[in-house]
């Protein structure tokens, strides 16, 4: 076997900053009340720009990344899930939700101290679990719950009436938040937040688009730690600024041919959240020279894409880039509603064929060799339609492997079985372990 090319690699310079932002985010949330600020909780898909109009001291903790953080700590994750099970909730419910509830029931905050009670919950209703999650949390914490129904069909069929339905609910939610907090809402802050939201999510799409390069400047395992900032608070200026810095660094890596995986010779994407406690499966794939350049999940959970002038997929142009000046609350809400409804990861909720089309686009434009689908027992929302995606990809001639697991409940993940399946998939792709890659990992 010929020795594969070894690309130069470098650590990301802005990595420590990403870590710092994340740590500060949880500290700010926990201490918000000490400083007279406001706390709200909800999902990573909540319209997070909207509560920003309540002031600069409004802090959010989105449930999914909080639960994913806990999932890395298998012992605490288990304690949280046990606490939820003990209250009678079914064990097949969303594992993020079960962990979040458990942390809440136990009154233990993963980052230290008591569980910080929010002033209100704010959520979108698209998946069967999301709205139930915050309905229960708001009842337990005895705080209001604002739920925005976004079930208006796929973006490609969006009409004025469908958009208006979402916008009207957003208007109502502002009135509710004003009553709950006793604060006067500031439209200028909302407008700034919407601009930041569009900037952050378009920038992330741009960063993902840079991964079309060979070698890929980023691998998915690294991307997990970077995309997460948008799930925390995409409407924050700090996060938009960070993504600008990251975009510039990734551009530079592409220009200099810096790789994420030194022996890259096979490019794949995965699907849905990974089993967070077992990210080493990505390292295992690297031993075969495989780089996962992302997934529709890492790209489109919080990246907003659009068709480019040359017909390819890339960042959607922001209102600023289009020269749109947002002047009123209604305009801001219409833009955030439209922007969020175009989220790639919301489309499969309506039709798996849309997701298959997007995956095939990624397969072709990101120059892939195969796809690995995680049939994720922990997240019904992102696993909806996965089986049809598999059939659609196979029909298009794409090599596909699946494995079962759970993003946050280790009891539902079989590591040995998964690595065996990966090994078989590698064999079908004609790949063997690269001794240099194995030795380098063993030494690290």
């Amino acid at each position: 076997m010929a020795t594969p090319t070894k690309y130069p690699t470098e650590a990301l310079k802005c990595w420590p900053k990403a870590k710092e932002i994340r740590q500060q985010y949880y500290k700010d949330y926990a201490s918000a009340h000490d400083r007279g600020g406001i706390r709200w909780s909800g999902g990573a898909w909540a319209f997070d720009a909207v509560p920003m109009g309540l002031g600069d001291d409004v802090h959010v903790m989105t449930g999914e990344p909080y639960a994913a953080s806990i999932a890395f700590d298998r012992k605490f994750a288990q304690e949280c899930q046990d606490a939820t099970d003990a209250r009678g909730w079914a064990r097949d419910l969303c594992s993020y939700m079960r962990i979040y509830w458990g942390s809440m029931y136990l009154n233990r905050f993963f980052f230290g101290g008591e569980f910080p009670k929010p002033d209100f919950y704010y959520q979108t209703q698209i998946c069967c679990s999301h709205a139930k999650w915050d309905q229960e949390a708001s009842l337990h914490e005895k705080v209001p719950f604002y739920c925005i129904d976004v079930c208006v069909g796929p973006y490609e069929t969006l009409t004025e009436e469908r958009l208006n339905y979402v916008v009207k609910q957003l208007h109502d939610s502002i009135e509710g938040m004003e009553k709950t907090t006793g604060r006067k809402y500031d439209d200028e802050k909302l407008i700034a937040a919407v601009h930041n939201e569009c900037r952050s999510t378009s920038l992330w799409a741009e960063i993902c688009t840079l991964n079309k390069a060979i070698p890929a400047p980023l691998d998915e395992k690294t991307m997990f730690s970077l995309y997460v900032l948008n799930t925390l608070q995409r409407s924050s200026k700090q996060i938009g600024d960070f993504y600008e810095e990251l975009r510039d660094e990734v551009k530079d890596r592409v220009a200099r041919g810096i790789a994420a995986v030194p022996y890259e010779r096979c490019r794949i994407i995965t699907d849905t959240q990974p089993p967070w406690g077992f990210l080493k499966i990505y390292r295992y794939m690297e031993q075969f020279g495989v780089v996962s350049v992302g997934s529709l999940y890492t790209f489109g959970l919080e990246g907003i894409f659009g068709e480019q002038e040359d017909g390819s997929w890339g960042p959607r142009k922001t209102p600023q880039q289009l020269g749109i000046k947002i002047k009123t609350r209604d305009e801001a809400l219409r833009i955030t509603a439209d922007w969020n409804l175009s989220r790639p990861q919301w489309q499969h909720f309506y039709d798996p064929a849309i997701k298959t089309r997007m995956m095939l686009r990624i397969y072709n434009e990101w120059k892939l060799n195969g796809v690995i689908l995680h049939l994720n027992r922990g997240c019904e929302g992102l696993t909806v339609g996965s089986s049809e995606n598999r059939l659609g990809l196979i029909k298009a001639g794409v090599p596909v492997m699946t494995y079962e697991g759970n993003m946050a409940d280790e009891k539902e993940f079989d590591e040995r079985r998964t690595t065996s399946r990966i090994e078989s998939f590698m064999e079908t792709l004609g790949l063997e372990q690269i001794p240099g890659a194995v030795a380098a990992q063993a030494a690290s």
Partner: protein
Amino acid sequence: MIEKFKEWYINRHTYAKQWKEQTGGKVIGTFCTYVPEEILVAAKMLPARILGSHEPQDVTEPHIFGMFCPFCRDALAQGLKGRFNYLDGVVLAHSCIHFRQTFNSWRIHLPVEFSYYIPMPNTVQTPHARSYHRVEVENFKKAIEEYTGRPITEQDLDRGIEILNRNRRLLRKVYECRKLDNPPLTGEEAMYMAVTSQFIDKEEHSNVLEAVLKELPERKLPRDSGIRLMAVGSENDDAEFFKMVESVGSTVVIDEQCAGSRYFWNESVPNGDRLAAIANRYLDRPPCPVKDYPAHSRFQHVLNLAKDYRAQGAIIMQEKFCDPHEGDNPRLKKFLEENGIPTLSLEFDSTNPLGPFRIRVEAFLETIRGEELF
């Protein structure tokens, strides 16, 4: 006459094929009970709800991952096995992600002349759902008109509304009889009545209901009604289960399920705007948990039913993997128990272990009877 419903239940596919031959009309498969059937009936179509068969099946594994509810897989299996090959079209009104998969796999692998997705609001409590859903009902009407090539007039809509409302009223009257000390019909029989209204021609169904209503005052069941139970929870048309429950000293006197009362409980209230009346009817009906936000408005309705029908206990029937119900049940159970209604929770699959279920039901009934002693 009451046996007619069971006969229809068993021979539903034969019925639909014969209806089609006799009328030359179109049969439209409805996914979930939120499809505004008034529009289909106004267009002289037969709405036929897609249900499962409660038989083991091995055909859906490539299409729907096994972590999704057995009902959505069982329903798709019926299509893949060719049992619904008479359908001219399929319609889904937005509800849970589980059943949406059935609809989408159906569209991909079992093409029909007409398929339509109605993006119905899921947060039915927001006041904005009303004007929005009216538009979606109107869009659906237009799509049907385009498909049939015939306009649906106001008179057609009035007819559609009245046919549906009459059927709902009659089912309510039948259910009213279940409030009696000795109900003249079993829960199993009531289930056949309610569920068949979801796929039998509504007028024909109503005619038989009317005839049965005449018989019911004189009807005496050759059995002691025993403990009065309520069935509450996910989709369930498992007749064998009801039969078993009622064979061990109880009668199911009321249900809160989409195969039963949730389907027909309220009417379209004419208000001059026919489409708004239809749209509002589906927003105002007893909600599936997937649509019950931000408050649990459903809980009080469940309790009211339990009280009105003097249920002594409730069986919470949980379809395995059904997230919307799983997201309600622990609080619903607590709510019912705090209000004096003991509960028994059972997890359902497409096929169910009646032996172990029987033991649990018997134990539950003993507990209730024991409380009566003191």
